[in-house]
């Protein structure tokens, strides 16, 4: 049955490909700035996620499509259009330090007295749901007694950074509550660990819950109040495939640029818990339609925090399960010592375990494999690195200040480490491919661009750039070389005079420096002739095989079913046709 469905689908696809004529690579509205979700998604249902299954599936089964292809949702300029997943903020436009610090906050801080409408007393992580005086709902999270200020500080520092990066995140507020500020709603029920029943919450329950939280010297509690995100909760999203009941969700999540590239952001801020359970889809209304909005939530396990304790030394350095170090350790009777075990951390409870000297942007790992992270290529990582590099020292220190750490050493230390990790991430991924950006062409055919790595001093100035020119046929996708490749020593080149009459020009640019072997990968940039001159309409970074090192999933058991034009692999005629059609403009972008 399954085979029959596949066969029908492939025949359908093959027929579609063979019957088509020329398709433009660039549509008139390219590059689009927003991916407008046109379908009503009101039929989307709540999806539960089994946390243990998510671990098992991603650790041992690898459910994603691991094809080495360009991110599917980028526009023709290799950027991510605004969508229900992502909004271009930092780098796309100037952001002041105040704006970065403000993050997702739209209103004022929550106001007491607070009515407890839900609580979790089981386990080691206390939590509550409350309504404030304005009737807004907040999720209240505490610090563990062993590490006052750590989890709450990490959450309020990290949230605005992810917001500035472009993700949908909750409004998180640092607040102080007192026992007497809390009132229990008489209808609040608690699940009883002992009896298995749900019975009304009591004052004693509240006392039990608060006993598990860090307490200020004056008896109050420092908390993060996380405002409930807009819309009806639908459960978490997965980092692979699409949501089968959402008509607008057409790009496989493991091939979404903002999810692949999140690996860089997660590494930077040590968000090792970057997995499905810490995401949330909600149903919202926009322009009369129901749409699914995708959020990242719960940043309590970031920086040096492990939410309920200081972050484990393994976090960020090794998956929960990895065969090689495990068997090495087993077979050597423990004499093989994983390098990260020896890392020393400062003795600051409000920091937890966070450092930058040992940190490697390339080797960093979340708790268990994230399929989108595993698919990240050098172009995805470069895209992310530019955003990381866009955070100034001042912005970072201002964001860290919002953590309100009572130990001034903690604030300085966290700021220092974030800056150090920013620099490492930027240096690593800005140089993992050809870092040329911001192409423009003047009326006379003078092309200008910039070197992102050199401009930000994460790499040297290129010794030379080599530029090859071609007349580009937008309907057939064919590029016909014009003139001889030129060598320039500054990011400026002149197009051959013959191209002045062309409708489209394609320039292939490589950068060269003896210390930067990855710069030689070409960047194709496309210009369209318009009434007002040349407009940059396309950019493709031709990257080598996946840019991630140290991921045991890569190259060993991944299902590499497709590759892009940078590395053709033997394929069936149908899949080759499909691939060909995708690269010729029949794909969404």
């Amino acid at each position, binding site marked *: 049955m399954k085979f029959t469905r596949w066969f029908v*689908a492939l025949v*359908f*696809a093959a*027929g*579609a*490909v063979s019957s*088509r*004529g*020329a*398709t*433009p690579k660039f*549509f*008139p*509205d390219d590059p*689009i700035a927003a*991916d*407008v*979700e*046109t*379908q009503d998604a009101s039929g989307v*249902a709540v*999806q*539960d996620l*089994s*946390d*243990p*299954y998510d671990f098992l*599936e991603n650790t041992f089964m690898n459910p994603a499509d691991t094809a080495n292809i360009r991110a599917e949702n980028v526009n023709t300029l290799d950027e991510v259009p605004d969508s229900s997943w992502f909004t271009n903020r930092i780098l796309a436009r100037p952001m002041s330090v105040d704006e970065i610090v403000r993050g997702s906050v739209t209103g004022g801080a929550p106001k007491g007295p607070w009515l407890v409408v839900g609580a979790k007393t089981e386990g080691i992580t206390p939590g509550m749901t409350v309504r404030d005086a304005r009737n807004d709902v907040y999720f209240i999270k505490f610090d563990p007694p062993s590490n006052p200020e750590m989890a709450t500080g990490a959450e309020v520092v990290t949230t605005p950074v992810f917001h500035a990066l472009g993700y949908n995140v909750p409004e998180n507020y640092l607040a102080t509550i007192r026992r007497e500020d809390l009132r229990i709603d008489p209808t609040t029920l608690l*699940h*009883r*660990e*002992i*009896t*298995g029943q749900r019975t009304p919450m009591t004052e004693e329950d509240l006392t039990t819950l608060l006993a598990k939280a860090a307490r200020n010297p004056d008896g109050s509690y420092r908390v993060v109040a996380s405002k409930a995100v807009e819309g009806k909760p639908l459960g978490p999203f997965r980092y692979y*495939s*699409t*949501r*089968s*009941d959402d*008509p607008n*969700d*057409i790009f496989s999540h493991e091939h979404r640029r903002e999810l692949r590239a999140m690996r860089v952001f997660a590494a930077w801020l040590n968000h090792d818990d970057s997995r499905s359970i810490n995401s949330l889809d909600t149903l919202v209304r926009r322009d009369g339609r129901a749409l699914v909005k995708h959020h990242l939530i719960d940043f309590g396990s970031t920086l040096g925090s492990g939410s309920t304790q200081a972050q*484990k030394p*393994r976090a960020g350095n090794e998956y*929960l*399960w990895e065969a090689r170090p495990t068997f090495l*350790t*087993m077979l050597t*009777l*423990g004499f093989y*010592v*994983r390098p990260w*075990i020896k890392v020393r951390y400062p003795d600051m409870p409000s920091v937890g375990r966070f450092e930058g000297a040992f940190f490697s942007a390339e080797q960093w790992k979340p708790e268990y494999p994230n399929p989108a992270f595993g698919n990240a290529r050098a172009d995805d990582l470069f895209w992310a690195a530019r955003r990381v590099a866009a955070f100034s020292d001042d912005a970072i220190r201002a964001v860290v200040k919002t953590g309100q750490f009572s130990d001034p050493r903690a604030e300085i230390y966290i700021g220092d480490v974030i800056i150090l990790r920013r620099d490492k991430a930027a240096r690593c991924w800005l140089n993992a491919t050809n870092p040329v950006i911001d192409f423009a062409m003047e009326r006379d055919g003078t092309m200008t661009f910039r070197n992102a790595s050199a401009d930000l001093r994460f790499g040297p100035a290129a010794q030379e750039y080599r530029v090859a020119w071609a007349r580009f046929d937008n309907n057939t996708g064919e590029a016909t070389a014009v003139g001889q490749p030129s060598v320039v020593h500054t990011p400026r080149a002149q197009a051959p005079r013959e191209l002045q009459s062309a409708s489209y020009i394609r320039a292939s640019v490589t950068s060269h420096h003896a210390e930067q072997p990855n710069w030689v990968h070409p960047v194709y940039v496309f210009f369209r002739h318009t009434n007002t001159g040349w407009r940059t309409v396309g950019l493709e970074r031709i990257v080598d095989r996946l840019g991630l090192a140290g991921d045991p999933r890569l190259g060993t058991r991944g299902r590499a079913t497709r590759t892009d034009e940078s590395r053709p692999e033997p394929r069936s005629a149908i899949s080759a046709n*499909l691939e060909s*059609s*995708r690269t010729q403009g*029949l*794909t*969404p*972008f």
Partner: protein
Amino acid sequence: MLRLVLVIAGALSLTPGNAQAQETRAELLAEMREQKARSLEPYKPKGAEKALLYVEQKRIIERLTVADGFYPRTGGLPSGSGFAMGVGYRKHLLNEGLFANVSGVLSMKTYKAFDAQLRLPLLWRDRIELWTNFRYHDFPEEDFFGLGNGSSVSNRTSYKIRSTDSSARAVVNVLRWLRFGADLGRYKPEIGHGTDPRFPSAEEIFTDVEVPGLAAQPTFVHYTPFVEVDYRDYPGNARSGGLWRASFGTWKDRTLGQFDFHRFDAQAAHYFPIFDKKRVFAVRASVSYVNNEKGDRVPFYVMPYIGGSDSLRGFREFRFRDENALFMNAEYRWEAFSGLDMALFFDAGEVRRDWEDIGFGNLKTSYGVGFRFNTYKNVFLRFDVAMGGHEGVRKFTKFSSAF
């Protein structure tokens, strides 16, 4: 994936020959979404995911482990009793002040146990615990090899022991790391013919003179105060700290007047962590001795023993028994990954008739390797393989930490 192919195929069929239908990128994307809208279906978990979701949503594990009501009982019988299964019922009463728990279990080798516990309301801000216990045990083929350090494995016999023990326990948790308390109870054993078909019954090989208590069993009243200093980081999977425990029991023969005795047990364990507790040296020493009243004897079934998964792992359970026992364990543990610790261990111990004969010159020893599947706080599965006792390779599967 299939859906993606269909969507792309649909989009392709619309774009090329009739590419005029989509003249913009926005139209193409809209068409792709329209295609998908025609084949929507709710997400349906299958197989393992469906099963795990059911377990989580129905709170199956919570119901089986902590909730009031019926629960399955699988343990509580001696090693070697075979696969066992039973049922229990527990209930919190009086606003969780009173806790009652009754359970029974039956093994493949017809070992039977029935236990009933009642915990009275906690006192002094939960620092004082009062328990009452009733136990009925019927173990038909317990191993016995004779008394003394030189007992021969070829003298392996079995015996049946059926007992009832009614007791009360009071515990005072003075500090987080310090507790003391006492047990007071009435113990009535009956020794009978061992039913293990592979070996003779104990009374066929040994006499009551050689093995006190074989012929007749009294009813005991026992009183055992204890003190415990426990500063381990996580008692279920200790990586640092230590545990010191001592108890001194007085056992009075209330029916035969032949078996009055005292029993002293002491144990000390310490854990030395290195590399952020990823490597641990764990050591433990344990001594036990019984001291009969003048003219009285100590029944063999209450004598200390060594051998088995908790003491000398290269030997069978209950391999050596006598009035005095000493054993020591040393383990080097290392974390293979976050869910598994491995261990190299060395055990040594001996039993003696007289305490003065206990020494370090003629210890029985064994060594081996262990696999401990764990969470950070608890070992939930332990598999130890031991050898060196010249009695074959011993394998143990347990659901708790070694020590």
